[in-house]
């Protein structure tokens, strides 16, 4: 009997673990995404080592210098080094994008599990509020929210976190609905364990994986949205070196000094693209439908 079980386990093992790694290993696009993100994060973190220019120090004599050995990406309208502003800006753009998604995922999980676990009125109220948020086009609601909260980078991040909540609530809720019917949760309820404990110990850990996938898919979009709000004047305010805000000032000088809005845009595009490549790869691997 035990030998039989042993063989079953041996057969099972490679089937359950191997394919994901195998597919990930062979998915070149995903790896390209990882490499790009790694390089951008690394260069942003090492900004003080890589460049000796202060990203906010004005040096008017050097204004509008084209790309050269001294300033690889040129200088802006008050003589600041654009490369150094991009590198320091990477910390803000990527950091705020990730932070926005972390916040939205955290709130989404809490609301979604509560909604799914308790059901009834609580569920109705939470889900109807989510419906209201979903009724707006995301960027336009984020714009209105950021305007109402007052233009700043933190508020832009908050606005994006709020508009993205419904997706996570729905995901966590549907997972919870399935989990609630599972035997281990039912027995925990029968034992009289406090609902908060059941949610935290049993439901949340088991409903995390779809949320994590969604989060990877959303980071690229969040970065773009923060930059868009920055571009519209609703995000980071000058002289903060945020990519969207840089392009917002730079585009007025586009035809004469092409490098000014071009380089921050390339970095913005690359990082959003990289996150989308990673998200696309992960979805391909985990979604059985797309493999057929």
């Amino acid at each position: 009997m035990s030998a039989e079980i042993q063989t079953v386990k041996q057969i099972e093992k490679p089937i359950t673990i191997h394919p994901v790694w195998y597919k990930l290993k062979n998915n070149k696009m995903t790896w390209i995404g990882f490499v790009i993100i790694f390089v951008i994060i690394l260069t942003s973190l090492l900004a003080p080592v890589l460049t000796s220019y202060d990203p906010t120090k004005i040096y008017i004599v050097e204004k509008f210098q084209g790309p050269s050995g001294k300033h690889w990406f040129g200088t802006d309208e008050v003589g600041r080094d654009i490369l150094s502003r991009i590198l320091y800006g990477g910390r803000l753009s990527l950091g705020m994008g990730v932070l926005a998604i972390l916040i939205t995922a955290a709130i989404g999980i809490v609301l979604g599990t509560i909604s799914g676990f308790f059901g009834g009125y609580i569920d109705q109220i939470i889900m109807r509020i989510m419906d209201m948020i979903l009724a707006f086009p995301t960027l336009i609601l984020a714009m209105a929210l950021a305007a109402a909260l007052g233009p700043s980078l933190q508020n832009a991040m908050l606005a994006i976190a709020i508009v993205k909540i419904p997706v996570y609530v729905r995901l966590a809720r549907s997972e919870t609905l399935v989990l609630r019917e599972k035997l281990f949760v039912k027995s925990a309820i029968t034992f009289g364990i406090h609902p908060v404990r059941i949610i935290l110990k049993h439901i949340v850990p088991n409903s995390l994986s779809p949320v994590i996938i969604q989060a990877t898919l959303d980071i690229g979009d969040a970065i773009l949205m923060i930059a868009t709000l920055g571009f519209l004047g609703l995000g980071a305010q000058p002289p903060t070196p945020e990519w969207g805000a840089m392009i917002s000032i730079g585009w007025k000088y586009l035809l004469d000094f092409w490098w000014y809005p071009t380089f921050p845009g390339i970095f913005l595009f690359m990082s959003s693209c990289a996150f989308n490549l990673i998200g696309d790869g992960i979805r391909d691997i985990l979604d059985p439908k797309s493999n057929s």
Partner: protein
Amino acid sequence: MKKMIMKRLALLVFVVFGVTFVSFFLSHIIPGDPARMMVGQRASEETLKQVRGQLGLDQPVWIQYVTYVKNVISGDLGTSIRTQKPVLDDLTAFFPATLELAMAAFFIALLIGIPLGVLAAVKKDRFWDHFSRLFSISGVSMPVFWSGLIIILLFYGYLGWFPASGRIDLNINPPTRVTGFYLIDSLLSGDIVAFKSSLKHILLPALVLSYAQLAVITRQVRASMLEVLGQDYIRTAMANGIHGWVLLYRYALRNALIPTVTVVGISFGSLLGGAVVTETIFGWPGMGKYVVDSISYLDFPAIMGFTLLISIGYVLINLVVDLTYYFLDPQLRESEVD
């Protein structure tokens, strides 16, 4: 079918109510003191009190909300702080320009997106598939404001082929207004010069705006084409000697387009969001540019009026999409009857 439409209409009422609630919350509760914003920082307490009374801000919140909804229903979205005109008048004046741009972008997205998606599905894992994948990933990752700049730099700055801003050349009279769409109006009045000029002006912004949509549509068409092409009826059709264009377009694509309709509806929202940015870059005199100009003045009535109007439009589009979906898919229609 009837029951479904009734259900959807009931939901619509609820959602529109929700939208007014959110926009009331954003325009009256969060920004601290709208009266202070209106009169400016240096106004005296007395003027402030007076304005507060005029705006009804001294009333309890729920009365304020009721007044707000009443005003919205009667078409009063407030007066713009920047232009000093009723917000609704401003928005309706700019609306045709935005709609024309959005429609043009939509048209381009469908025109390129559907064939590219079909091609990618037929040539799965070959050159065109990889190309379409790269093309669509860069589409959803491309910041609209940046791609707009690059296109202007290239086609206006270096090549000089297309104008960089506006709807029509300054020395050409806009066609007499019938629909508000320059392209259609100029054709109606037989003004070829105006038509050519407005076509030249709309091409770049529409192209930029369509890119993200194009990406989404291509991916969706590819995915659903792959699913449909694997089905039995396609194999049967092939066994009966049907192949090539007829098989792809008359047999497969028809069914593959059903899920695409939903995606198109959802991405129409992002198109409206994108229009805000595209209009700013290309100096396109539409609602988006109007609202961005209002942002720098923190002109709340204008911003919230725009948000409200766009969202209600968005809800209506989603309704139409859902209805189309039911209309297109006989299986759904039948299940509803039971």
